[in-house]
């Protein structure tokens, strides 16, 4: 039987950094929406401060970050730090983009919950969120 929760998970997806490659973030945003999540896409060139602002304003439980320029080691931890500064560490941060394997472990240590690299099936991202928020997800 389908589990229906009062409040579906809200996810802010954002492009941090200067690059404008938004193919990935848009595909993921659509897939998450189709999977029953409430998705807010911020658009391009968001600073860590802007991303956290959006997440707090939207009362989001999750932030999804996308980057293709190679600045992930600076900008992903900066989002985590901004959440700490704003006392909002309950918000889960995940990310994706052109991110070499070696960097993934380092990012996880810095508080990024998960990194999805090129070639990841969309279902894998959805499954990960379902596991993370089992009660709150609306089954499609």
């Amino acid at each position, binding site marked *: 039987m389908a589990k229906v929760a009062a409040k579906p998970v809200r996810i802010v997806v954002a492009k941090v*950094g*200067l*690059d*404008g*490659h*938004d*193919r990935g973030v*848009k*595909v993921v*945003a*659509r*897939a998450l*929406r189709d999977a029953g999540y409430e*998705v807010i*896409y*911020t*658009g*391009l*060139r968001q*600073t860590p401060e802007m991303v956290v602002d959006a997440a707090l304003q939207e009362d989001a439980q999750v932030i999804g970050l996308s980057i*293709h*320029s*190679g*600045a*992930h*080691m*600076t*900008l992903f931890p*900066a989002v985590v730090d901004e959440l700490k500064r704003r006392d909002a560490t309950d918000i889960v941060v995940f990310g994706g983009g*052109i991110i*070499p*394997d*070696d960097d993934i472990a380092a990012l996880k240590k810095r508080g990024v919950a998960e990194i999805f*690299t*090129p*070639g990841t*099936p*969309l*279902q894998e991202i959805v499954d990960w969120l379902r596991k993370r928020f089992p009660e709150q997800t609306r089954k499609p």
Partner: protein
Amino acid sequence: MKVRARDPKQVWQEEFEASPSRDDGLETSTISGIPLQPLYTTADVPRREEELPGRYPYTRGIHPSGYRGRLWTMRQFSGFATAAETNRRYKYLLANGQTGLSVAFDMPTLMGQDSDAPTSRGEVGHCGVAIDSLADMETLFDGIPLGEITTSMTINSPAAILLCMYIAVAEKQGVPPSQLGGTLQNDILKEFIAQKEFIFPPSPSMRLVVDSIEYCAREVPKWNTISISGYHIREAGSTAAQELAFTLADGMAYVDACLERGMHIDDFASRLSFFFDAHIDFFEEIAKFRAARRIWARWMRERYGAQLERSWKLRFHTQTAGVSLTAQQPELNIARTAVEALAAVLGGTQSLHTNAMDEVLALPTDRAARIALRTQQLLAYETGVANTIDPLGGSYFVESLTDEMERQAEAYFKRIEEIGGVIPAIEAGFFQKEIADAAFRYQKELEQKRRIVVGVNDFTVDDEEPIEILRIDPRLESEQAGRVSEVRRKRDGARCTNALNRLRKAAAGTDNLMPYILDAVRAYATEGEIMQAMIEVFGTYTETAVV
């Protein structure tokens, strides 16, 4: 009794239908979704006057001698870290037989900001070389004679500034602008459509493009003032037909803008160049290149009334599809790139960049960059494919697909015209939505295994061996920031300020801005300062994000 001979095609059709089908659930359409017949015959190709290379409409190539006269230019897009390090890579590539340079700039440079700007944090030197002022450009081309080599520069919103820097470096080498050859990407429309590296709103952006075309027609006549790009449109997820249609529509929008400025078509048309993606669906790509030449020639001659043959010829650069590369089993990317490069060559490209196998992970290492270049050399010198002009001309399939590409492109031109032209279509989000829809459709096909990407959704391995990748030293950022502040400290401050003030004033009027930008560059104004002066007049653009 006399039996009437049956139509052989009918016989084949029956035999085909009676044969077992592979039935593996895979799509029998091109990667862009064009349905494919199992067989093409004479019936699929309309009768038309014989097409020949070097003759209108140039479907079979713009040169009568194809690659017999001259091979394509092997132009590897390259740039990383500092100007000094990239200069070393250029010398390495030239020593290995590369025949032209192609500069990749880092994100802050592409977005018109200096390395010490707060939003440049973490980005300096990562996906290209960091250039802040003429001083960096001097280092970048140190020891490389600009009168003897051609250079392509991939830059858009700040394109005019980087071109002025190049002109200024040449001046210092004693090379006059009239001798400079190369290409400036300078294609702002596809930024609004796909790659999204815009800064100013569309109207002042177009003014800068026309300023540089007009200036170069006079002062830098051998320079390709714009490289009208489908590459980024395709990489953002479009189909082949969308790439073709949107790129040529952009080209016509630039032509319209130049005509509006009062230029004559034959004074600038031959310096417009194009840039396409070579994706993995082999025949579709060849058809796309052939259709591009035919459509452009017809529009230039018949719609715009260009008189000179050189105005009708569509010349293009090709890059193999970055988006087709996989992080999984990355060595397979060498094979993908070879197939894509072959399509570009059979499609008659003028120049070619082949991606390195590790570019899906980071900028290429020396070794990966060399293999990519060697792939082109192998095609050129080992395979014999360059010996015959347009060898697929006359293929029932390729000719039919070429016609189909043309039909689909013309249908898009009509739709764009109905919306009111390219810029209104951008503002309405038309292109963005078409591309996002196509990207999502393709991703769905992968998820449902209706298309296979080897190593990703089939033929996978459990233990991927890590490959060596290029790392950018994190100290580079503060070093580059140090260099730009030293430039600011050492230059003639008053001269620089005056040049920037004059530029600001000119931006508010209607003068061609190129001479003002050149003056500011010569006075060692930084890229960020020059952009800022123009932003004060032009403002900036924010798109409404459509998912």
